[in-house]
């Protein structure tokens, strides 16, 4: 369980490895998010615009990072800010690994905060999304 007093700047947190992305998952995400761009669900369309086939929604990758951040936070802290820069494309079959390091720990208005540097990779060094999350302890 995450504890403010145990955190150190630069500390690397335990990664989360997601099961390989599937085409069915992209269809589900399209439905749940309302993003019906056929680039994510229709291979023929994706190929017609020069892609090898369908690619994952960038926001699905951010969803993985959101899962990871909330897993880290548990019931000890809640996010106040969460941002991600989009990187390389994710395709069905890609296994995404989410990882994080503590960038900063501080107190503000008598509340404790931790800034996490986060990233999602499809292979070591192949970043599909990178960003930051700020957690405020309860």
């Amino acid at each position: 369980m995450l504890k403010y007093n145990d955190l150190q700047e630069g500390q690397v947190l335990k990664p989360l490895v997601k099961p390989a992305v599937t085409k069915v998952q992209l269809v589900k995400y399209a439905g749940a998010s309302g993003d019906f761009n056929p680039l994510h669900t229709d291979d023929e369309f994706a190929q017609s615009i020069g892609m090898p086939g369908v690619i994952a929604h960038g926001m699905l990758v951010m969803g993985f990072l959101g899962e990871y951040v909330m897993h880290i936070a548990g019931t000890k802290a809640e996010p106040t800010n969460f941002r991600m820069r989009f990187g390389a494309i994710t395709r069905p079959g890609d296994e995404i690994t989410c990882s994080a390091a503590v960038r900063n720990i501080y107190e503000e208005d008598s509340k404790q905060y931790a800034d996490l540097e986060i990233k999602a990779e499809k292979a070591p060094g192949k970043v599909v999304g990178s960003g930051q999350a700020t957690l405020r302890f309860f």
Partner: protein
Amino acid sequence: MGLDNSIVGLTGPEFTFEVEKRHIRQFVQAIGDKNPLYVDEAYAAGTPYGGIIAPPTFPIAIGVEGESIDLELDQKRMLHGEQEFIYNRPIRPGDRLTCQMKVADLYEKEGRSGKMQCLVLDTEIKDENGKQVAISRTNIIYR
């Protein structure tokens, strides 16, 4: 031709978004996120959240629902560069949220292939009393 600075401050129409438990469940199932906080009432009630909440990227589904601002953007020149969420409080099932899209900023940046424009679009999410719940901020690169 680039985008003109006069678009900064433009707003779209206000719309209401009702948060449904089933929508939250489908959203986390698509991600494959098994955190009980989003689906299990009894579990969530025992946490500091005090009940089911929506996951951190859920506001993206809100932004899609509303009418966007007609900026006559060329889709082919657009690239979703960054996404940010600013949270004032968690989103919960049963929330009736008042949402509005706004052009928050437009600035130039030096990219690898010359100057490019960055367009910042905010979806402001408020509760029924007008209190801010979250902002969903999308950074679009326009080349």
